[in-house]
Each structure stands twice: as structure tokens, then as C-alpha cells.
């Protein structure tokens, strides 16, 4: 019930990066036109930690897809708390809600 995505990195120019917005590549999305479906969709970065919080060692950072990035289907997402740089290359879940279909 979610599309898989990868965290590519932060929004950046050649030498400066802005960590408040991350770039996400969604599986199967190859053009900017296709990204229209995903705009506004909630994104979850799920990760494990050593200590237990609220009864679970699994933690999550929620965010939303905000806009397309470039013309090849990459997408910008803004998270409640910025993603850690450790997440580059890690999977992210792009949920199918809020749905507009």
C-alpha cells in the first residue's frame, strides 16, 4: 500500500546543500508528468534504533512530497524533521494517501 522510493540526497547546488528538503526517487516514476500523482502524498522514512521508544525499536520520520525535481521523475519531499544524512540511499515509503483519485 505504498510505493517504494529512495532518498537521493538533500536539495543542493554544486557546493551547498539545503537539508530541509530531500530528493526522493520513486520506483517506476520516470518523467515529471508522472510525478503529478504523488504530489502531496505522505512519505515515511522508517528506520531502526537501538533503544526502545514507545514500545518499539522501529522509528519513523514523516513527510510529504512537495514538488517534482527536474524532468525525470525525481521528487522533492519535506519532512517533519530533516532526514539524517545517513538516510542517503535508504528506502522510503511513499504512501498513497492523501488520495485525490
Amino acid at each position, binding site marked *: *500500500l*505504498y*510505493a517504494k522510493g529512495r532518498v537521493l540526497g538533500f536539495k543542493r547546488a554544486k557546493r551547498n546543500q539545503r537539508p530541509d528538503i530531500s530528493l526522493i526517487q*520513486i*520506483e*517506476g*516514476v520516470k518523467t515529471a508528468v*508522472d*510525478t*503529478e*500523482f*504523488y504530489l502531496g502524498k505522505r512519505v515515511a522514512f522508517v528506520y531502526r534504533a537501538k533503544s526502545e521508544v514507545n514500545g518499539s525499536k522501529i522509528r519513523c520520520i514523516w513527510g510529504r512530497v512537495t514538488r517534482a525535481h527536474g524532468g525525470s521523475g525525481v521528487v522533492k519531499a519535506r519532512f517533519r524533521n530533516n532526514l539524517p544524512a545517513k538516510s542517503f540511499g535508504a528506502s522510503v515509503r511513499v*504512501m*498513497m*494517501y*492523501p*488520495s*485525490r*483519485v
Partner: protein
Amino acid sequence: MVHKPRNSFLTVGVSKYSRSQVIAKRVLYKRKPVSTLAVCPPASAKKVEVKGAKNGGSRSVALNKAPRFYEAEDVAKPLKHRKHARTATLRSTITPGTVLILLAGRYRGKRVVFLKQLESGLLLVSGPFKINGVPLKRVNQAYVLATSTKVNIDAAKIDAQLNDAFFARTKSAKKAATEEAFFEGQKKKEPLAENKVAVQKATDKLILEAVNKVEYLPQYLASKFSLSKGQAPHALKL
């Protein structure tokens, strides 16, 4: 009286109509003054009889009394709240009888029949319970995918008592913080109210009539939605 502006600017500082022209536009000669009715202003004070020979017989007591207490600091007055949330507009793809896919919550992935939109904007939905275990439930439009499959149900026949009040939480009798209650452990889950079970059965009967007529529809509703490898949500044709 709010109306469109009577004057406008030709360029900066040069208005289209002169002062007398604007006054003429007000058409005062046609307006009749609203006749003031002879209404006595509401009484602001009342007379109270007072006993005692030397007390003057009666006193005038103000009806709108001045407050007995004034705040030492200025109390901030909250700004007027003019925006009112409207109930969500139902998507055109969702009509009574549409099969919806629930995207989140306990029943995520389940295919479910849409019944009607409630006053709060939430969608009333039912499994039917016999088929996939989803009871009469309220669901937000944003957490639902509308498919093109439709079940032929008559929206008018849905029970009228199914509204937001039907789903309000029942207040359980409070067993005040007694030690008894504490040691009793978890309170046993109360069985569902009888009238709710009855409404569920009646509504489902309505839906099942229509569902069983279509080949494979009961099995379709019983199955769960999922994405398989290579399937991308944006390319799905629902």
C-alpha cells in the same frame, strides 16, 4: 450599503466623475428615509420600592449594571474568526455503491462499498461485514481510492439513522477511581449495542442483494488490494 465603487480613476489623481456627479449617482431624490417607528428605547432602569420612612419611597435601579470587577491588565480580545470549514466536496468518482479501497487504518487494503457522505464530510462505508469483516464505518475521503466498480444499491434505502451521531462514543458508566476497579484489571470489552448490530445487518442485506447478482463481486470484495512488483500507483487504472 455595499455596492460597486461609484467612481474610478482615469489616471493618477484624476477621477472619472466629479464630486457633484457622484452625489447625483447616489440618487438621493429617489430614496425614502426609513420611517423611524415610535419605539420606546428599552428600559435601562427600573423603579424599586424601598421601605423605611426616611428612604425616599423608591429608588431607580439600573438594569445593565456596571461590572463589579475590572481587570488590572488589559485583556486581549481574540480576533474575529470569519473562516468556517466547509464539509468536503465529494469527489466525482465516488457515488453510492462505488467500491472503495481503504488506504490506512486497521482495514487498510480492504475493498469496501460506499454508502453515503455524512454531514461531517466523512464517507459512510460498509464491508459488507459478512464478506470482509469491515463494519459500518466512517472514513475520510483522502484515505480512500475510488475504483470504477460500482454496486447497484439504492441510496434512498440506506437507514436514515446512520449519521454522525450514530457513531458518537457511548459514555461508559464511570466506576470512579475506586481501588476495586483498579485491581479488577482490564474492563471486559462490551458487546456491540443491539441496535447497531441490527442496522449493520439490515444495511448489509441491502448491499448483499446487489453484490451477489454480479459474478465474482463477493470474492472481489473479500480480497485485499496490494501493489505487486513493478506496479506503480500513478499508472494504475482503477
